[in-house]
């Protein structure tokens, strides 16, 4: 399952501060969409609105429409918890649950929600998710050891396994490799490319090479100055953004003239 996400004149506020203004875009299913742009331009804020995670911050709210396969994510009867079950998220810093074993971490989406499952089901699911996250071979002999004993890159793949174990439609990655070394980064990038076979993948990155390597579509965000809202400047196929962008700002950014 993977879903098409439509953003229609979306504004994101922190209390009265407009953080991201008037974003219109369609995120395609079974593809990787990369958000690039300088720090503070609202990429992370925007990706967090996709699964209503920004609501965790008091005063954060959204105006406009966010449709997932035509369904309004911010509709009046929508439970943010249900949204988050369909939209998985991987964070900047790997954050496995320190009190849980590797296996429990993979199953945490179920265990924390008090879902019952049989032992064989749990084992199958663990293996499937860990294989899906390219981590199975490294950890299959120590599934009962704590997840915090893994290396940073392995922890991040554990977090991805945790996210895909609940079989979401969309996977959001907020700078998933910024805390990792190049080898782990390569592993995560390969994984992201595999994941797009099944999921809609959205990735925020500061690394333009990364965006050009793995993404199908790229969205460039920019900010006019401090205290101004971030805006979507250009959204197009990745090749176009990096070879022949339509906007001067985009060209300046991808060619390294600023940011």
């Amino acid at each position, binding site marked *: 399952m993977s879903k098409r996400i439509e953003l229609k004149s979306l504004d994101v506020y922190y209390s009265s501060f407009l953080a991201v203004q008037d974003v219109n875009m369609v995120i395609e299913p079974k593809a990787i969409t990369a958000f690039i742009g300088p720090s503070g331009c609202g990429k992370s804020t925007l990706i967090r609105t996709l699964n209503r995670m920004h609501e965790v911050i008091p005063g954060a709210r959204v105006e406009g429409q966010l449709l997932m396969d035509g369904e309004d994510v911010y509709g009046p009867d929508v439970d943010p918890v249900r949204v988050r079950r369909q939209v998985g998220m991987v964070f900047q810093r790997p954050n496995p649950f*320190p009190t849980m074993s590797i296996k429990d971490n993979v199953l*945490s*989406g179920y265990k924390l*929600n008090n879902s019952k499952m049989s032992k064989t089901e749990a084992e199958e699911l663990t293996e499937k998710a860990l294989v899906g996250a390219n981590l199975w071979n490294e950890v299959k002999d120590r599934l009962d050891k704590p997840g*915090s*004993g893994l290396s940073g890159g392995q922890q991040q793949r554990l977090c991805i396994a945790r996210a895909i174990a609940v079989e979401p439609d969309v996977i959001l990655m907020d700078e998933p490799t910024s805390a990792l070394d190049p080898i782990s980064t390569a592993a995560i990038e390969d994984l992201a490319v595999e994941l797009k076979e099944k999921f809609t993948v959205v990735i925020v990155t500061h690394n333009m090479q990364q965006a050009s390597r793995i993404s199908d579509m790229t969205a460039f965000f920019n900010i006019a100055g401090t205290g101004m809202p971030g805006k979507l400047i250009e959204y197009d196929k990745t090749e176009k953004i990096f070879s022949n962008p339509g906007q001067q700002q985009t060209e300046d950014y991808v060619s390294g003239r600023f940011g």
Partner: protein
Amino acid sequence: MATSQLQSTFQGTRDLPRWVSPLMLVGFFLTSFFLQSALASGADSVEINLVPVAVFGLLGYAVTLYVLSRIVEGVRKATDRLVTTLVSTAFALALIPLISLAYTVVTNGVARFDMEFFTFSMRNVVGEGGGALHAIVGTLEITGIATLISVPVGILAAIYLIEYGRGTIARLVTFFVDVMTGVPSIVAGLFAYALFVIFFGPGVRMGLGGAIALSVLMIPVVIRATEEMLKIVPNELREAAYALGVPKWLTVLKVVLPTALAGIATGVMIAIARVIGETAPLLLIAGFTASMNYNPFDERMMTLPVFVYTSYANQGVDMQAYVDRAWAGALTLMIIVMVLNLVARLISKYFSPKG
């Protein structure tokens, strides 16, 4: 050429051999001791005061070591040695009352630390014999009930303050917790007494009242400790759980609390240790008695601190028997607190996040 120059820049002066400092310490203390005893024998007295021995020994050691080190090792290392001496002295000074207290309680308490002490009450005992079973039972019951009241209230209040509380109410709660932390224990006792007088009339004495008074003292300590522990649970873990579609209450229950459990357990044990030795409020509301009373909902109930106090304050004919019982009671109380601390350590070792 270049390498030898480099080496010479990094080479410091010579170090004093490792054995110099401890040898000097022992040497100066011995010298100081013999000097004192020589002076004392001149004054025709056998008693040697250990305080001047320690002071002069230490002074001699610190000054000589500093000078010697300054000559041989240079200014930086001499200062280092001087400060090390100062810090170690401060540490030893802090330890002296602690060790002295433990030693006094153990040596005095061991006289009556026998089977009878743990199997008998003081009913119909005058003079020798008797025990503190009634006080031990009372302390365990009253502190136990106080813990049962304070821990849920304290932990839930802390969860409210950290995870949910916003705005005026949260600030008010925080303010009152701060105020309650400073409430004198006798005021807590008076509060419990006044509260029970409303329902049972004047002159009421009841173990439960003592438990209420103790929980008034305990709750703010539990809240503070739990708050601190919840604050250090990284926000990323909460976000990780939210991102998996876990509702907030389950996140708190299954992610935040287990992560903080070890610290909370330690905090609770500290809170218990803080109230288990309270005397004043229990004297007021739980009263004192020489008889067994297992029922905290009726009649006077003895507790260990009150037992120690009354044994010492109202000595009977065989004075030594009363004093011995007081010390044995104090020793028992100390052992209970120590056991609680050990339990807390085991809990935090067993539950703390591994990795």
